[in-house]
């Protein structure tokens, strides 16, 4: 992980999901955004960034690029990410939603072989308030502090940051791994990073229905995480999805649980792991304070 303000950052593609405002915010938050890549537009400027046709041109000009923020059309995400990997970029944050899952399978096979971190797709990225912003998280809801936020939502993540900030609890880092069914980095990886991060004193984990990522996280918290964790799961009142075909996980076929993928199941897992769970976003600050014994 290289999340220092010196690390060089690239944007690939300028779609609906990245606006002039996002670019300006990244710059304002200390991100060393060096260029954009948009084939056919090389030599132009976009949101005050120099634009190139190829990633390799950017590397030729600026040297090693640490992170790329991929905002191309969902059908071009695989190609853009493979281009980044071929140019030795080791951190890839995919903002675009709607990437076909089999493209993600192909990308993850390659990323694993090349030890490349993939965050997303359908992720607003990572923010370390006051230090770096990699993605589209709105920094205005954040303030420097000690709480790490880990989620797979977009706006719900900001909602929680806003509640914490309003309650006087700043954040050390906030990451959304992305809300698609198949995403790169896992809750487990980030729990470990937050557990090791000196600035982080407590972790808020934000879940939603689908898959079994929250359940895996709950088990991991019970086993390996020393810092206090508070959980919140949205969608506990939402009607459940139908059966394993739709939830699409092996766990649902082999040794399946009728509640697989539901918020109910996730809440039970947190409860079993003795992780305090907030009823609503506005209750989170209170539980965090209690957990941190502030």
């Amino acid at each position, binding site marked *: 992980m290289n999340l220092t303000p010196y690390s060089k950052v690239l944007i690939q593609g300028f779609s*609906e*999901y990245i*606006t002039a*405002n*996002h670019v300006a915010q990244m710059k304002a938050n200390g991100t060393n955004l060096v260029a954009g890549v948009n084939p056919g537009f090389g030599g132009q400027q976009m949101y005050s960034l120099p634009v190139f046709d190829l990633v390799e041109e950017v590397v030729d000009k600026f040297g090693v690029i640490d992170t790329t923020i991929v905002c191309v059309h*969902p*059908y071009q995400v695989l190609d853009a990410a493979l281009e980044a990997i071929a140019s030795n970029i080791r951190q890839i944050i995919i903002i675009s*939603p*709607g990437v*076909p*899952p*089999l493209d*993600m*399978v192909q990308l*993850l*096979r390659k990323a694993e072989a090349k030890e490349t971190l993939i965050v997303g797709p*359908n992720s607003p990225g990572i923010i370390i308030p006051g230090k770096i912003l990699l993605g589209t*998280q*709105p920094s205005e*809801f954040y303030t420097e502090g000690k709480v790490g936020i880990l*989620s*797979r*939502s*977009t*706006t*719900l*993540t*900001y*909602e929680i940051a*806003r509640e914490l900030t309003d309650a006087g609890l700043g954040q050390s880092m906030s990451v959304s791994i992305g*809300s698609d*069914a*198949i995403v790169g980095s896992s809750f487990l990886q980030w729990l470990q990073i937050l557990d090791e991060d000196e600035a982080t004193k407590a972790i808020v984990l*934000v879940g*939603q*229905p*689908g*898959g079994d990522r929250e359940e895996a996280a709950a088990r991991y918290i019970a086993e390996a995480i020393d810092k206090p964790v508070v959980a919140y799961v*949205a*969608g*506990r*009142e*939402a*009607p459940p*999805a*139908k059966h*394993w*075909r*739709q*939830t*699409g*996980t*092996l766990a649902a*076929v*082999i*040794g399946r649980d009728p509640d697989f993928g539901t918020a109910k199941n996730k809440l039970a897992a947190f409860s079993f792991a003795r992780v305090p769970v907030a*009823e*609503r*976003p*506005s209750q989170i600050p209170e539980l965090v304070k209690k957990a941190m014994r502030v």
Partner: protein
Amino acid sequence: MDLLEYQVKEWFANIGIPVLPSQRIDHPTDLKRLKIRYPIVLKSQVNAVERAKVGGVRFVGTTIDAIAAARSIFNLPILGQLPEVLLAETKYETEQEFYIAVVLDTAVCRPILLGCTEAMDIDWDSADEKMHYVVVEQEFSPFYARQLALKMGLQGALIQSVSTVVEKMYHLFVEKDLDLVEINPLGVSASGQVMALNGSVSVNERAIGRHQNIADMAETMVNHNTSSDTIRNSGNWDVVEMHGKIAILGNGAGLVMATLDLVINSGGKPGVCLNLRHASVTETSPTTFKSRLEKALKNIASDKSIQVILINFLGSISQGSEVSQVIGEFVESSMSEAQLFMAKSNGGKRRENNFPRLVVRLAGSEFDTARKDIAALQTPTDTSITVVENLDEGVAEAIRLAKSTASRRF
């Protein structure tokens, strides 16, 4: 998107998976021009595993019987669906029946091969003991299919014949961007020949746009089958249909669900809940945030059971500056509609009351102007639109309004 059996079998035949000679029947009289030999089986083309149990599958030996059976199947609704097409297929004698499938496992982020030496009457409860699987860790190669065959306990020539079918299923899975391809049952004859007797295919909705022929199929199917079920079942929660009076619009699936929870926990009843952050997976033409908001407001306004629209936007939205404009236009068009109605019906209060009340929660500096503009809008009921920054407040206000308008509604 789920294909019908006859569509699945066309795909199977094209990729070389053995299927029986069959013929599509659009009308009972098509059976007079049958090109396959009796005895045949007639199958209702609906997506329901219960089809055989409720009489949607019939064996017939003569044209007369076939036409009679076809007439009755065409008129037999299964799970509320009437078939538009039947499939007439040669009968096949099997010695054994297997279940095989390729499915995308979102937990391990890989396709998995599934197999079982019993055909499954969807007795999924006991499936975990009998079902075998192989995770396709790296790029597929036929040895993964042989690993499945071995795990299923197959021996000798059956290893190759079954794994060849699995191999072709995998190629279909990748070529067409599927979530699932399933053969159930795969018939095995006394001589060891294998045959796909029935099959299911589920296409991933997000990838339809890059397959022209599938997009064409989808267009036809959406016309018949626009249920929100289909959408919810695709595994994302961008549309949740409930039956209360408070519609929820948000920019983010998690946020919409959190709002839904808050409404229910505070004693309210949500109606349709929509995430407008990105285009629906079934949307074929490009959309903008503005166009999605316009469309959502219009659709909700036409649903007379909705009395309050709770809008919850937070953070940055491309075209966010246009939110107040879209809401303004929506309110204005509702007003002119109401006036038109009043003019026509010589002034009535009934219609005015049907204009849903709006609670708008906007958080973030992007909406500083929008908040003021929306608060200043004139509404048909002359009440101002509630604009808040705090979510709990917005929820409370929506519930209060839903309760207060409830009495006036009918």
